[in-house]
């Protein structure tokens, strides 16, 4: 759905116009709206899609949280149905149990922005009583900056049960929640210390520059994924530019901290824009890509030219490589790897409407068979599965996925986003890698059994 700037009451500078009369009428009719942190969103965009809802309940049948717990009334009940009664205030507090995975919107045949409506409503509901925990766990790049210099100590501490129990009691992060492995070198450190770019393929002409968006987790924790993405791109003839960059704000957004999230995503877009105009932006952080591509605008009403520009240029790594393959520009002289790989496409990747490019990409490698999980969500949904009151729900959501991965008998599984990999690793005990890991190995740049993080 698209609306013009004029319809949204925005002036050229992107600021809401004072004269937007419908909004003024609404505020008069519902004084509570005056205090609404989503003043932009509450008046429109997603609410316009409400009338498309035919109450078919397809979203209810697909919601991974509804499947496992009665704590959540379901996406239609708390969303298109309750929204009509909200009048600025939440009428159904089970909304807090929505994990923001977006599976409802993805499966809606009528184009209702169910997950977006619910994310907005949750931000209103939590206003004024945001838990300290939710303020802390959304500081993703701060966590990386603090832990990286003391990685061995951090990893040791994260495995100490008494400490985790204390963290659970004081902060509310579940003692068994999956945690990343801190690395002693961030991707920036690696870039500084390596002996120059990976050599191009023999005879490969220069393909020009690409900007690489590392994401917080790809900067500090899943550093191996970032390295391999950069190396594959360089191997293919690209000059990879990695501008100094911050956080996309996704974790803040999904926790309802919209102001923080808005400034993060705008700043990030500015950082990435420094990599050059019209240069493709590639990322192996699938859900962060979704934040820049559409969630910033659709959930938080960010109308920023640079965010839109970067979002339009951004491609998830598999999406980027498969488009090359479809254009006949991806070398497929891969080494044979005899392997069946269970694969899970994360909810927030599916939500970008690109299908599952990683499946076809990995199957270009001779010997590889990909078995797609067929599951909607792994349960973690960013920070949802870390929270002490939601940990059990997140585990129950992920269980069928864990079982399928384990029953496959495979040693290696693939998944495109970082927190989902942490969740599936913890749930299965298997090595779980980004699909680029497989492509890197198939080009002969590493062994398929090389480190996953």
């Amino acid at each position, binding site marked *: 759905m698209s609306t013009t700037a004029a319809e949204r009451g925005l002036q050229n500078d992107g600021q809401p116009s004072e004269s937007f009369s419908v909004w003024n009428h609404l505020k008069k009719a519902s004084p509570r709206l005056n205090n609404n942190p989503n003043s932009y969103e509450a008046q429109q965009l997603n609410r316009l899609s409400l009338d*498309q809802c*035919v109450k*078919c*309940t*397809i979203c*209810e*049948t*697909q919601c991974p949280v*509804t*499947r496992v*717990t*009665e704590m959540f009334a*379901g996406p239609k009940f708390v969303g298109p149905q309750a929204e009509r009664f909200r009048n600025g205030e939440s009428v159904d507090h089970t909304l807090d149990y929505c994990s923001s995975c977006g599976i409802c*919107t*993805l*499966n*809606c*045949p*009528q*184009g209702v922005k169910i997950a977006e409506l619910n994310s907005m409503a949750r931000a209103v509901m939590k206003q004024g009583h945001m838990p300290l925990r939710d303020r802390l766990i959304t500081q993703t790049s701060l966590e990386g900056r603090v832990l990286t210099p003391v990685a061995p100590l951090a990893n040791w501490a994260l495995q100490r049960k008494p400490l985790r129990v204390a963290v659970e009691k004081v902060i509310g992060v579940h003692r068994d929640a999956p945690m990343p492995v801190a690395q002693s070198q961030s991707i920036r450190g690696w870039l500084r210390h390596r002996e120059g770019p990976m050599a191009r393929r023999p005879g490969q002409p220069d393909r020009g520059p690409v900007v690489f968006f590392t994401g917080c987790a790809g900067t500090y924790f899943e550093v191996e994924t970032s390295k391999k993405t950069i190396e594959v791109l360089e191997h293919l003839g690209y000059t990879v530019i990695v501008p100094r960059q911050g956080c996309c704000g996704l974790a803040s957004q999904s926790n309802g901290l919209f102001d923080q999230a808005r400034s993060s995503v705008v700043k990030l877009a500015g950082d990435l824009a420094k990599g050059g105009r019209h240069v493709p932006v590639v990322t192996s952080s699938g859900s962060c*890509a*979704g934040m*820049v*591509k*559409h969630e910033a605008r659709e959930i938080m009403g960010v109308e920023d030219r640079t965010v839109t520009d970067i*979002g*339009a*240029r*951004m491609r998830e790594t598999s999406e980027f490589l498969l488009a090359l393959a*479809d254009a006949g520009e991806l070398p497929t002289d891969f080494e044979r790897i005899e392997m069946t790989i269970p694969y899970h496409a994360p909810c927030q990747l*599916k*939500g*970008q*409407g*690109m*299908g*599952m490019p990683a499946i*076809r990409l990995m199957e270009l490698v001779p010997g590889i068979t990909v078995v*797609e999980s*067929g599951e909607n969500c792994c349960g973690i949904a960013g920070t949802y599965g870390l929270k002490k009151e939601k940990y059990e729900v997140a585990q129950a959501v992920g269980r069928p996925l864990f079982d399928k991965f384990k029953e496959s008998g495979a040693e290696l599984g693939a998944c495109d986003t970082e927190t989902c990999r942490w969740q599936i690793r913890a749930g299965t005990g298997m090595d779980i890698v980004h699909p680029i890991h497989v492509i890197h190995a198939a080009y002969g740049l590493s062994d398929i059994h090389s480190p996953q993080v």
Partner: protein
Amino acid sequence: MRDVIVVGGGLAGLVAALRLRRAGLHTTLVHMGRGGLQLGQGTIDVLGYRPSLVAHPLTELGEFCALEERRGGPTHPYNLLGVEPVRVGVGFLRELVGEAMAGDIETNVLLPTALGGLRPTTLYPASMAAGTVSLDPSDPGALHDGSRVVVVGIEQLKDFSCQLVAQNLATIELPGGGRLETRSASVSFPGRGTEADSNAVAIARALDRPERRRDFVAALGRLARRGETIAVPNVLGLTDETFTAIADGLGRPVFEIPLPPPGVAGMRLTDRLTDLARAYRVEMILGSRVIGAETGLGRIRSLRLGTAGHETDLEARYVLLAPGGFESGAIELDSYGRLHEPALGLPLAVPDAELLNDSWAGEQPIFRTGVATDCTMRVVEPATGEPVHENLYAAGGFLAGAQRWDEKSGEGIALASAVRAADSIIEQLKES
């Protein structure tokens, strides 16, 4: 380059994509959300009324088409297709789903509804077989004069009133003469935890778990009397094994009555076809709307999808549209009373008469609006019969001419047109 892009994830789209893929073609299925198949009853209606009740859909198709011919307006899909493609289309679905569907393409049966009526259909899930009333005088049918049925409701499931169903069913004169003997009963069975209000899918998921299933079977066993068939709402598991386990556990005939959406039987069929499409490596792109096409030299070169953040152009040799009708948003009526096909701006075949009338449950001519095709299912200009694009085909509810729910013809049209369109494309590609 892709051989074919199929648009739409309902029955027509899924079946067409599977047909094309099984012929070895690189096939991409693009769909906005879950298809409408899940909202249906999981049955295959070929032709139920013409307007009188139809007992033999294929034999009576000729008379139906003759009536449609006289009516004028957009040509009915069955008039373009004829009998054989219906047989082939329904046969292909049976090949795909195997034992999951019961019934005979030549003869309709009647199935009890959630309001206690009887409606005609052709194929039905195996879990509804014990509830069929025969329209064939030589076949007594599962339910007949004097059959005793206990209609069991679930207290937490508000979409199914067992008293209403039982009382209404008992008043119906059966086609072979006589009536059913019915009574109602209910059990308590929350889908999740101790919730007071469950939907059918939550209960079905609970019944997929052996320990919950045992309780349910025990409760049904306690209330059923000797010689009774048990009727329950359509909640007996999302997997086919659940019904078998329950039927075996009860040791007496049991059948499901379809419910309003979300339909568990329709969901089973959707899941089964989607799993097959995944296994056959149909490339599936869910959640993106088709927003346009690049055309040239009388052909569609690529379809434009509104993917997040940017547009994606997918090139293909052929395009098969099966996005559904009005109810799926594939055809729109604006506030000026004008009809549009919003994705590609295709010309529509529109009935000459008044489009909407005041009758509540009667026929509304507007629903006969859709795209016109030739008998190979290639999209044509309604006025001239000339192809709109050489490589553009259509199937299912998108086609002009039918009043699917009045005729009870939706799945028959979907299957026949989807397979016909797919086969046309396969033939064309073979020739080139």
